[in-house]
């Protein structure tokens, strides 16, 4: 039988040697590549496009690239919170459309742009909240519910707008879209702020830990008293909130509220999250990864455009990269 000495529970267990793996070991570990896929991909793209088309690296182009990436970065953050709970928000791009339409209609009704923006964000947050509520209370798979709300709010958007775009002539939004502070345009700052807030929420609050616990093993988390349903609902509400911010940026960018869904926004938000090393099975997430993933996808489109590659090839390239990233992720396990 065991004696205490057998198990020699090592007095040094609490010691300081929490060694970090060596660089070489790190580079051989497939999970390193999966975690850093977006960074590696971004650096690779910058090098390739920089050599093939020097204009790519011009300050003006890089600024335009960041500006174009801002909306996707914000959406990817929302999607990250949902995917971290092992869910998926397919209604994200539709929520952006709904937010934009509400923004346009409220503004057109003469209520002022701030109220319009606030109502847009409230509406998309409510969509997220509803998603979470139906998923947890009804115990229905995430993709079914969000597919349903995708269709539902698309219809709602069409009904509200009558299928017609609404012009939004607001000096506030115009300044938001075209103004800049320091090296970056305001939308880029909005995205940076979103990244910082989300990063703090994920890594430095109880909500973040509970979110990952819920995504990792919901049953265990529940057994420890974590209210996993509330955590999920909160994650979807965050996603909806991000859709509202994205809607404001989108309306500011194009100057009108279109009753049209930009499906590539949805697919790219999921793609950015996958590229960012977030596990689709939940429990593992970062904010910087998906943000860089969003940058990488935008850089890909931007570079291909500069190289005069037809826009028809861009979805193909995005798809190939996402599947490649997913393949690398597979070796993580």
């Amino acid at each position, binding site marked *: 039988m065991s004696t205490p000495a057998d*198990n020699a529970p090592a007095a040094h*267990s609490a010691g300081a040697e929490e060694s970090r793996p060596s660089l070489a070991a790190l580079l051989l570990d497939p999970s390193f590549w999966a975690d850093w896929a977006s960074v590696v991909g971004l650096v690779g793209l910058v090098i390739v496009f920089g050599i093939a088309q020097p204009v790519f690296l011009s300050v003006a182009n890089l600024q335009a690239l960041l500006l174009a990436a801002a909306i996707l970065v914000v959406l990817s953050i929302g999607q990250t919170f949902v995917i971290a709970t092992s869910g998926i928000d397919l209604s994200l791009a539709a929520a952006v459309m709904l937010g934009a339409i509400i923004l346009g209609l409220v503004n057109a009704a003469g209520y002022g742009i701030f109220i319009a923006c606030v109502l847009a964000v409230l509406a998309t947050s409510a969509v997220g909240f509803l998603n979470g509520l139906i998923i947890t209370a009804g115990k229905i798979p995430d993709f079914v519910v969000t597919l349903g709300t995708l269709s539902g709010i698309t219809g709602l958007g069409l009904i509200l707008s009558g299928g017609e775009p609404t012009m939004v002539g607001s000096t506030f939004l115009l300044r938001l879209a075209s103004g800049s502070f320091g090296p970056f345009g305001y939308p880029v700052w909005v995205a940076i702020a979103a990244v910082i807030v989300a990063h703090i929420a994920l890594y430095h609050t109880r909500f973040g830990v509970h979110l990952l616990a819920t995504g990792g093993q919901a049953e265990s988390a529940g057994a*420890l008293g974590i209210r996993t349903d509330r955590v999920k609902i909160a994650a979807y509400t965050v996603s909806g909130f991000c859709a509202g911010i994205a809607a404001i940026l989108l309306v500011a960018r194009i100057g009108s509220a279109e009753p049209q869904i930009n499906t590539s926004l949805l697919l790219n938000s999921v793609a950015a999250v996958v590229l960012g090393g977030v596990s689709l099975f939940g429990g593992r997430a970062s904010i910087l990864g998906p943000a860089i993933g969003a940058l990488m996808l935008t850089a890909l489109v931007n570079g291909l455009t500069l190289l005069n590659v037809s826009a028809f090839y861009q979805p193909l390239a995005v798809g190939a990269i996402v599947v490649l990233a997913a393949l690398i992720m597979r070796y993580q396990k």
Partner: protein
Amino acid sequence: MSAPHHIPATEAIIACEGLSKHFGGIRAFTDVAFQARRGEVTAVIGDNGAGKSTLIRSLVGVHQPDAGNLFFDGRARPFANPDEARKAGIETVHQNLALIDELTVAQNLFLNREIVRRIGPFAFLDRKAMKREARSMLSRLSINVPSINQRVRRLSGGQRQAISICRAVGSGAKLVVMDEPTAALGVQETANVEALIRRLREQSVSVILVSHNFDQVRRLSDQIWVMRAGKMAATVRASETSGNELVALVTGAA
């Protein structure tokens, strides 16, 4: 067969009398009196279906007993759910429902009781304090893990069980309940977990241990309660019994 002898209420951390639980027409256990002394390891043994797991779950709020009284820490305390029991100071070490694979050892040890620093209306995790505390919790119980920053996924079954136990004890629980803590473990890992339980005993932590393994309960516990066919059949001091006697009590041959 010895009748359950009564321990003064001040010595019992948890006690019940006349406790019964039925599921529809099926009796899980009937008229059970049971006590666990403060600072002791109290074992509950019995055959499959004897009602020991249901009894334990009825003590910690998972099931609601149909009849009988439950006392915890000197007060009448029926628990409506496991959360209430946990708040009162009973931590249960679940067999499989324990740890979050993707979180680190330190994060798991402080899951849902994270240490936070308040800045205005916001509360931020105090990760340094949690890591420091985690190290001292582990070293107090001499639990050896490669790093508190390691994801639990990479730990062995025994290490995971040790972390779960450490979390239960570290929460300042007055009573730690373990349901078959070594059922899924190999020989060496079982030895490690047993050594850990022995250290808990040395530190006067009150433990209830449910087990199939008669040798194990004789090695680890102070008092042994035997259930048979939904009744509390006997209770004996571990030091005054033999493996044969336990087998006889469990099977009803005595």
